[in-house]
């Protein structure tokens, strides 16, 4: 299928980009386009203008900022998963990114594009949420920080305002003693995850001190499994962890669609959270 017509601008600066997006409410940022292009081709999206963020060097790259890593919005998935900084300082981001789509899509698709698209079935939003990432947006009015917990507003809706572009995200470094895992459950390698669980776990002396859990596709936005997180505090590996993970579906509102019904998704959230925690805790 063929996209409908649109105008195209490739701003040379962030200011120009913000201006282009602000001046037209039907303008849309093009951040790699791996989700947007199929929507355009199916004529489900009719932007008036695409503002291509692909040639703004200030939006790409991974930067060590002391207590956190800043990942530029236009850094491709491929670059993120290969970044030694991301692999060492926020491994959960790296290993989850490696599960996004397929190699060719990872060459074009971007970290920020995936977050701004705010698809609850996408892998990265749950990870950034679990890690308490902070998204940094910029508009003509200046920069704004948006905690991940406030960024994902609804199905395909982020907190970005018209005229605002995502600069990237700050991913806090969790420091030593943490283990990580992203448990992705999909029917075929290409399929959207039915459920995904991103877990970061700090473990010592055979018990879990702290856990951060993000859930993919368990509601219109990515969600934290807060009940499990608190139940895991101090939990011994084994039955206590198992029991804690039974609460993984609390506070979720998964949808029912062609690929799974809500009760099955809730069940999977419990099973996969347990698996993710066990793996993250290094206890297979």
């Amino acid at each position, binding site marked *: 299928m063929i996209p409908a017509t649109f105008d195209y601008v490739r701003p040379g600066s962030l200011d120009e980009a913000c201006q282009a997006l602000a001046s037209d409410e039907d303008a849309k940022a093009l951040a790699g386009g791996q*989700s947007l292009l199929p929507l355009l081709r199916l004529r489900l999206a009719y932007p008036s203008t695409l503002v291509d963020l692909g040639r703004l060097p200030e939006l790409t790259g991974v930067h060590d900022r002391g207590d956190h890593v800043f990942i530029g919005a236009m850094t491709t998935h491929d670059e993120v998963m290969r970044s030694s900084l991301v692999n060492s300082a926020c491994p959960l981001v790296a290993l989850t990114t490696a599960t996004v789509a397929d190699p060719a899509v990872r060459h074009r698709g971007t970290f920020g594009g995936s977050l701004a698209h705010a698809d609850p079935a996408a892998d990265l939003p749950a990870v950034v949420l679990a890690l308490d990432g902070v998204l940094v947006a910029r508009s003509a009015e200046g920069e704004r920080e948006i905690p991940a917990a406030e960024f994902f507003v609804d199905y395909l*809706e982020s907190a970005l305002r018209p005229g605002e572009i995502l600069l990237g995200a700050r991913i806090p470094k969790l420091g030593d003693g943490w283990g990580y895992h992203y448990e992705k459950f999909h029917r075929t390698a290409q399929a959207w995850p039915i459920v995904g669980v991103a877990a970061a776990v700090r473990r010592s002396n055979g018990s879990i001190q702290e856990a951060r859990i993000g859930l993919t596709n368990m*509601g219109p936005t990515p969600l934290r499994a807060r009940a499990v997180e608190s139940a895991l505090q101090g939990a011994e590996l084994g039955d206590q962890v198992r029991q804690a993970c039974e609460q993984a579906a609390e*506070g979720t509102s998964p949808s029912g669609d*062609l690929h799974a019904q809500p009760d099955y998704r809730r069940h999977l959230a419990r099973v996969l959270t347990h698996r993710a925690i066990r793996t993250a805790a290094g206890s297979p």
Partner: protein
Amino acid sequence: MAMRFEHDFTVPVPIEQAWAVLLDVERVAPCLPGAALDTVEGDEFTGRMKIKVGPITVTYRGSARFEDVDKDAHTLTIQASGKESRGTGTAAATVKATLSPADGSTAVAVESSFNVTGRPAQFGRGVMAEVGGKLIDRFAANLADLLAEPAHEFPAAPAVPVPAEGAAEVPEEGPAEGPVEGPAVVEERHLSAVPSPPDQDIRPAGTLRTSRTPDEEALDLLEIAGTPLLKRLAPVAGAVAALLLIGWLIRRLMR
């Protein structure tokens, strides 16, 4: 793709007052988020509706009319149908409202059904299923607000998030491979999404709600639904206050 919803709520105004408002299409139509009225001729009216979900936009043009208006029973039905302004798809809706007196207040029952065809209906991750439930929820909430509008001050809403577990959920009994799910089960809760019986594989998310503050909800509505309703209400109490009321109503009704 068909979706069916039922909403029950009570508005603190006498039945005749509520009935009069209900018949005022220029006020009722914009209760549907994203809808805008173009013409009104007797019981027939035309308009547009823009549904925007993230980058996805579907715009319908169409017409609607009142049917089966029974002023004694206080029931009416609105039939609406439209076509995508750019694609081939269609949308049709039937909204049946029944008013009954309840202690000086009015109990309102709204049964709505939607049928969407064309590209938006042709995906497994249903675009329309995601949005349809929310849309009709908001229609009902807006309608509740509209019917209550002239009567009372707006009570302040508690700034407590809506607990998601208490939200209406899609009934989920029956294995996926079961041939046909039994008749729709309307549970005790007042807001329910009722899946069409043979269609259980793709039933919509219905009225799910996440833990969000009323402010966020307002923001969300502004983004998704466009602005007609908010513009209309602004002179009365301000958009946010109006939405606070909606949030309050929903929570109260879900108890």
